[in-house]
């Protein structure tokens, strides 16, 4: 900010103002096309609903998610218990609502860590090039050599079964796709005139990376992250289902399905409800991601990158 005022009459000042004007125009146009996109509205709507349930869960339900009420065990859905009760008499709907906090929270945190690691590595590799690029890209290749779920499963298992360790495991795997996408975008734009101009003005490299390169990789990263959130919800539920994540009595969707399989025949609602909850969440992220891609980034992401765990 300070250098803008230091030489207000210079070309740089003018070009900065011009860029800001263009950016503001594009932003309002962008906001408009986001609002007009059906997928964005549908996916965003589903996710907002889930977020409301997650936040307001305790207010919406009179029941406790973990307290046992053995006198009302395995009741089928009714007015008092819209999604029935489980083997310990706990209200399934309540546990689903609390489970939304676990799933959404974990997915968001894990994605944030992945995005930070992947974007940093991709930016460094693409911008610095040469040996740094070669070394970092080998690191990416090594990460991609392991199917995400397998690596996360082993890391979580070795650290010891717990929700925290699943979060750690899912945070440290899966950043490679971001690194590749960011690197590709940086390679594409780093020789464009506006970066060249900044360089000629003697702008420090860190500032070029932050001010000129980073803003241009935001769109593909946002699209990738949205798709990725759904995959993480699925993987985290899978790991909890295997017994590696949330431990009973924590209300978590995957753990709930694992607990319900004994009563598959007598109380099928025990696995139906958490399964539908997982599916709705993932649909929300996928639809929103599709919409965002159409608006922000029509042709940059390969299907194989989007689907990586």
């Amino acid at each position, binding site marked *: 900010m300070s250098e803008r005022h230091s030489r207000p009459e210079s070309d740089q000042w003018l070009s900065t103002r011009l860029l800001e004007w263009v950016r503001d125009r594009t932003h309002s146009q962008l906001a408009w096309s986001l609002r007009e996109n059906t997928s964005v509205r549908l996916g965003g709507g589903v996710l907002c609903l889930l977020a409301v349930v997650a936040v307001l869960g305790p207010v919406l339900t009179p029941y406790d998610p973990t307290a046992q009420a053995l006198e009302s065990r395995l009741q089928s859905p009714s007015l008092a218990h819209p999604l029935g009760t489980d083997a310990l008499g706990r209200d399934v709907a309540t546990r689903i609502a609390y489970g939304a906090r676990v799933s959404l929270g974990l997915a968001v945190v894990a994605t944030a860590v992945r995005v930070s690691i992947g974007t940093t590595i991709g930016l460094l590799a693409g911008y610095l090039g040469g040996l740094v690029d070669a070394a970092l890209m080998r690191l990416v290749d090594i990460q991609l050599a*392991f199917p995400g779920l397998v690596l996360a499963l082993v890391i979580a298992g070795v650290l010891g079964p717990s929700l925290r360790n699943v979060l750690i495991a899912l945070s440290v795997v899966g950043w490679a796709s971001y690194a590749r996408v960011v690197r590709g975008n940086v390679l594409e734009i780093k020789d464009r005139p506006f970066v060249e101009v900044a360089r000629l003005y003697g702008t420090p490299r860190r500032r070029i990376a932050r001010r000129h390169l980073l803003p241009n990789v935001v769109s593909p990263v946002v699209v990738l992250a949205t798709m990725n959130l*759904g995959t993480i919800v699925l993987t985290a539920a899978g790991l909890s289902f295997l017994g590696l994540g949330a431990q009973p009595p924590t209300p978590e969707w995957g753990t709930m399905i694992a607990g319900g399989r004994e009563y*598959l025949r007598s109380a099928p609602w025990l696995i139906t409800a958490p*399964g539908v909850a997982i599916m709705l969440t993932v649909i929300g992220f996928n639809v929103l991601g599709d919409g965002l891609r159409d608006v922000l980034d029509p042709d940059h992401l390969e299907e194989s990158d989007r689907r990586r765990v």
Partner: protein
Amino acid sequence: MGNRMLRTLVREAGSLTIVMAGVSLITYGLIFLTPGDPAYTILHERHGSPPSAAEVAAFRAEHGLDEPFVVQYWTWLGDVLRGDLGTSYVRSEPVTSLLVQHLPNTVALALAAMAVSLTLAIPIGVVSAVHRDTWIDRTSQFVALLGVSMPNFWLGYLLILAVALSLGLTPTSGAGTLAHLVLPAITLGSGLAAIVTRLVRTSMLEVLEAEYVDAARSKGVHERLVVYKHALRNALIPVVTIVGLQFGFVLSGAVIVEVVFQRPGLGTMLVDAVFARDYPVVQGVVLVIAVTFVLSNRLVDLAYVALDPRIERGERT
């Protein structure tokens, strides 16, 4: 042309060596994430009580855990290269023979799932593309969305409930006969089918707009022949390569699906070993999965380069 292919191969071999070295290092190093001392933790969890110092020392000596990390890793790597993956802590059997017992079931499941997915995805994707933006297209796109968004372990239980328990058509668990393979293959294949359907549709839409398809049309070739002979054949090239790249998805999915159907295989073997802290088995399974995954990806990449001379290596970021 031959020269370029040779250079590509040499470069591939170089980067493959580096990747494999990294893979082996991570695979071996993972067990050192164990909280505290692995030998102590393993014995503690096995006996349910703190082991004595003598027991820990004996366990370390028996399994070579008393050496420095680098020496341990080097010894292990040397053994691996000679085809020796160590001995299971729990079952006192060589890991390689356990792998040989379990691998066929997983391979059968993976192949069956891929077959299921292609059988579903190719017709649905083509019909979707030909009838673009009609209700047929929208329905199939919606079904594909459900497919990618559904947890496969959940689908597995729904199928067990409907097909095995209610209708009694297939066994609920185990392996051995073709009947045992049906539900796991559908469970694992449907997720992949959803991804492949979208690919086939996109690829088909692109091809249908290509010039040679127009040319065929204007020659008066019947529309059905245009779609199924000219377009489909070309549309399937990218699809086949990307299906190859989904092998990791299939292996990951197989882990969970095998647990759902209690089907002996690499997945159940891995999960059991992780819970029992049977580290040689964990390392063996992870190594097999990673190496298979890397090699299949490289083969697909090479096939892609060989098939299409316009693609230079490195251009695909």
